[in-house]
């Protein structure tokens, strides 16, 4: 049925007089290489071809996009799988409809020359986090594996100054730094970092960046068109990484810097090759993890908050 609707909508695009469907998409953060497929799709006309007039909007406050979608003020948002579990538990009517980045990007980062060689060395140290809200669950799990507890470290909210606080020595480690972004940033500043990867240290693997919609709109044909376009763009990026980069920075000269170039290279292998596909087991496992860590009280069925994209 979805397929039929999709084909029908394609036919409408064939006639130039047909108006494209508007779709507002809130990004999770300011434009960065994590959003590659979105901009490649835009530049290659993948949205247009599917009758979509997509507007990509960076947020003022990264906590807002899912709330705006839940409140009906935006159609889609780029968000985080761990956040989705918490939001759903808090009653936000959200539904995951696609995956943008299929691996965790968040990591625990220390300075390369730091005496911290393993998670156990964090005892008595200062750990900075940005305001995600579940950093202490992730950190708690990692500390657990090494026999430590959360009150063995001092958690400091550094808001969005993850790299600066680490580089200036104000904190000994940061959690929530992206392995593709902050690590490169620190390298370029001459204070390289070393990362501990969450999924290697006791945290179940999860999708870092997902696409969410308001639950009641999940089967909107525009959304399947959107996810479809995403897949086409991702394929293009994998096949033509350099050309894809040129499209990413086309008309956005301020994105053309060394940091983004390196981040682009490091993010490429992490994009979801099948954005529409859903690994229910992965979502179920992460929900159980969050419940074990006391972040949520009950686990709703996966299909109530995550569906395949088309």
């Amino acid at each position, binding site marked *: 049925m979805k397929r039929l609707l999709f084909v029908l909508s394609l036919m409408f695009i064939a006639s130039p007089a047909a108006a494209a469907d508007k779709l507002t998409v809130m990004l999770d953060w300011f434009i960065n290489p994590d959003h590659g497929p979105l901009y490649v799709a835009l530049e290659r006309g993948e949205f247009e071809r599917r009758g979509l007039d997509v507007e990509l909007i960076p947020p003022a406050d990264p906590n807002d996009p899912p709330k705006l979608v839940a*409140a009906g003020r935006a159609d889609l948002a780029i968000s985080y799988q761990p956040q989705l579990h918490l939001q759903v538990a808090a009653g936000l009517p959200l539904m995951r409809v696609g995956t943008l980045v299929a691996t965790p990007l968040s990591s625990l980062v220390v300075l390369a020359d730091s005496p911290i060689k393993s998670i156990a060395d964090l005892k008595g140290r200062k750990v900075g986090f940005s305001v995600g*809200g579940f950093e202490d669950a992730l950190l708690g799990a990692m500390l657990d594996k090494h026999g430590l507890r959360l009150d063995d470290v001092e958690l*400091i909210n*550094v808001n969005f*100054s993850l790299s600066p*606080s680490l580089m*200036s020595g104000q*904190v000994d480690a940061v959690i929530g730094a992206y392995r593709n972004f902050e690590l490169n940033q620190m390298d370029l500043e001459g204070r390289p970092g070393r990362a501990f990867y969450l999924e290697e240290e006791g945290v179940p693997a999860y999708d870092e960046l997902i696409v969410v919609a308001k639950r009641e709109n999940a089967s909107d044909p525009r959304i399947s068109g959107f996810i479809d376009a995403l897949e086409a763009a991702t394929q293009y990026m994998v096949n033509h990484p350099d050309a894809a980069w040129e499209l990413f920075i086309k008309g956005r000269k301020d994105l053309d810097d060394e940091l983004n170039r390196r981040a682009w290279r490091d993010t490429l292998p992490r994009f979801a090759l099948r954005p529409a596909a859903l690994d229910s087991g992965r979502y179920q496992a992460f929900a159980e993890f969050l419940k074990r860590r006391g972040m949520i009280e009950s686990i709703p069925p996966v299909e109530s908050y995550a569906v395949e994209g088309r």
Partner: protein
Amino acid sequence: MSAIVKPLIVFLGLMCLWQAAVSVFEIAPFILPGPIAVIEVAIARADTIAEHAGTTLVEILLGLAFGTLLGSASALMMAYFRQARSWLLPVLVVSQAIPVFALAPVLVLWFGYGIAPKVAMATLIIYFPVTAAFYDGLRRTEPGWIDLAQTMGASKAAILRQIRIPAALPAFASGLRVAAAVAPIGAVVGEWVGSSAGLGYYMLLMNGRVQTAAMFAALFILAIMAVAIYFAIDATLRRLVAWQPEADPATFS
């Protein structure tokens, strides 16, 4: 008694309006929870919130103390030394013009994540109102009093201590009232940029965990604290300058 009854009624009225708005417009609880939900959470987490409130309170009071001291000293220097005036005046204006949001990350980088940057922020935010008000008061001393004092053989220091400063107290009090109202802003902005405790920190945390009712509970307590501080300072100031001749338009016969 009516001093408490009237504000109480206004407060309850606002609560009812809030609840009505939430119900009538069917506002989602994660956007704006109703007052009852907020109060429930506030009671359930009273311990945690109280602890954070204590931290923020200390930041505000320290900021007020330092800002007042610094501001008074600056005003006295500007009133008495022309050189000081030309150097301090631009500093004063800049301190007011720069949005504190922009300065906050810099202060945090300098002072670290402890209590210092929050106190610095609060101090900074009240520096201008206190200095400007006190300086203005010092400059506007009734010239007749100065004349009289000179004919009585008073030294410049005696005139400053016994006439200019007491005469400037009403103006100073105005500046201090403004300071009392805005100091909480400085403390909270400081917490937003980097902290591990305090109501601002707690609000951010709860926002991130999508526990909006808890965030509002903290906001509530912050508002109550700010109001209480203001009224405490206002009452103290009014007793300090009780000698001021009243010119209240409402009491004109």
